[in-house]
């Protein structure tokens, strides 16, 4: 167990970084489903609409957990000085930068276009921005602190998202226990 204690950051730090991932995933999920609202409202009852939104929120939570776990594993494996010394600011930056680049990926439908140049540009710019921000965090104390403060303030909003995710989970359970058609 010692190895986990040594290599894992403090619980509060873990929570902040998880909330950063949850914020991005939930914000995107809510934006995305709002695009479908006009189509859903034509054919779904209020209960069904609530059900579909609940599923979207649940998926967003799992999405955030998935991305957070990948980051956590990476930080666990990498040397302490690379990530864990400035875990919150690096984790938050990665959550937001990766999230924004993934949004660009989906909005431009890069997976379907299969255009090597577009994907190359997307990937190249992502890596460059990530490296630049990473270096900046390590060299500039103000920047590092700024990000840490930013996620502390954002935590409340992200917490509301998590609360909505839990409500969504309960709605799904109730609909399935009730066997709503």
């Amino acid at each position, binding site marked *: 167990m010692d190895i986990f204690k040594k290599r894992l950051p403090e619980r509060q730090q873990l929570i902040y970084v998880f909330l950063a991932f949850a914020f*991005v*995933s939930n914000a*995107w*999920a809510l934006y*995305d*489903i709002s*695009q*479908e609202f006009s*189509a*859903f*409202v*034509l*054919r*779904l*009852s209020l209960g*069904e609409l609530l*059900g*579909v939104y*609940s*599923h*979207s929120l*649940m*998926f*967003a939570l*799992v*999405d955030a957990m*998935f*991305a957070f776990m990948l980051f956590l594993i990476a930080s666990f494996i990498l040397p302490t000085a690379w990530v864990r010394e400035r875990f919150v600011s690096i984790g938050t930056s990665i959550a937001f930068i*990766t*999230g924004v680049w*993934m*949004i660009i*990926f*989906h*909005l431009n*439908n890069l*997976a*379907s276009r299969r255009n090597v140049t577009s994907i190359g540009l997307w990937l190249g710019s992502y890596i460059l921005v990530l490296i630049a921000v990473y270096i900046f965090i390590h060299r500039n104390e103000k920047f590092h602190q700024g990000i840490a403060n930013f996620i502390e303030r954002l935590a409340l909003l992200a917490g509301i998202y998590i609360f909505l995710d839990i409500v969504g989970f309960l709605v*799904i359970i109730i*609909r*399935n*226990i*009730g*066997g*709503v*058609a």
Partner: protein
Amino acid sequence: MSKFTRRDFLKALPAVPFFKLAWDGMETAVSNIQTQAQNSDHPNILFIVFDTLSARHVTLHGYQRDTTPNFARFAEKATVYHNHRSTANFTSSATSSMFTGTYPWTHRAFHLHGTIGNGMIDRNFFSMLPNDYHKVAYTHNLLVASLLHQFGGEVDNFIQTRELCLADEQFADRLFNRDYSVAFWGEETALRTGATSPGTLYLSLFDRLNRFSTKSQIENQFSEQYPVGVPSLHNLFFLLEDAIDWIGNEVTGLPQPFLGYFHLLPPHEPYTPRADFFEMFKQDGFRPVEKERHQFSDNTSQAELNRERRLYDEFLAFTDSEFGRLMDMLEASGIMQNSYIVLTSDHGELFERGIRGHVTPTLFDPLIHVPLIISKPGQTGREDVFSQTSATDLLPTLLSITDQPIPEWVEGQVLPNISDTPEDESRITYAVEAKSNPKMAPLNKITLAQVEGNHKLIHYKGHRANNPEGFYELYDLEADPEELTNLFDEADAVSSELKEKLDQKLNEVNQPFTRQ
């Protein structure tokens, strides 16, 4: 009460195989009792529904290509309904009409992946047939699966789609079987790219990679057998041969009487004929009638339409050959002697006027004219019915066959030539397209087709914001079966009379949803 210890548990372990044997034996005994109890004078009813099968591509109905020799063989000992029409141009709406005996304005499942309105769920042919029927259903089509999920416990044996598939990547029914339709949309919205981007940033990417890998594996495995791809729809991959083998074996072992509803995807797109059917019509010199582009054209070129039509016809020929194989199995089993076999489709497909497929607001005959061929128990000769019939007629016909009363809310009629029902020459049938209309609101954005005698009147209403009343088309189906000449402005008296009836019908069906 004494405590059940770990030692007690270990002592009891050797008895487990005995309980397993005893349980299996009890299950068999109960099953035998059920089988015996279910025997009655009622005939078996077997539905074979091929998705997206237009009667306009069936040789039996005058198509120039020999796409369906086995349908013709089946028709030799069956009743052929020459003017049978679906109630819609896509699956959810049309299949709901078959199940409920009502038009889309009543069952309200007129959206893509739509579901039947709450008040109608219990009014379907699974719930309305006598209790002695053993009811079994299978479908490749997830839109139909949504409807069958709605019927829940009414189907004794609802086989999940994946059971006869090579692969599927759906989770909704595994995790949320009791709220399938909502879970399906949740999953689609979160993981897949449709009209909008997927709702998950990372999981959707992995889902895509997973599906890509599955597809590559399957297509590599079957590339020789299926040169243009393995039959599929979205994430489902299947072999029609597997489904046919399964149905052939299943129906001979079912407790009788049974109602079997088997809804198979071919020849729905993507059109993927097996190697022995691929390019069979390539050099046949057939040139379909070229028609003017419609204002709802999706601008597909004529060359592309002809190519797609050929592939569709080849896929249909393959489908027909598999149906022939099923017929051989059924004949050999003797099941046809005490069974109604119903061969039909939910809707058709269009390759003209710059429109390809069936996702269109139009209701031209290739989209709604579908085959209906019914073999009665022990039928030995062919019979032909030429009067108008509708998909809404299937439920009342089943009720008539099984001596059940036909409720007032049923909008179909008992099919002619079943139970000595005469042909009704004055019959009016309808088809509806209303995907963009709210589910529980008056139908103001709708295409409505009305067929009476030789005439077919189509009203396109509310599709264009600058012309909410839309426009009409009138065709004389006998003189102009290709629907080339719009007579609406010429045939004044007929146009006015039919228009009045159509408008009256629309007002009538909108009444329950109109605020007083």
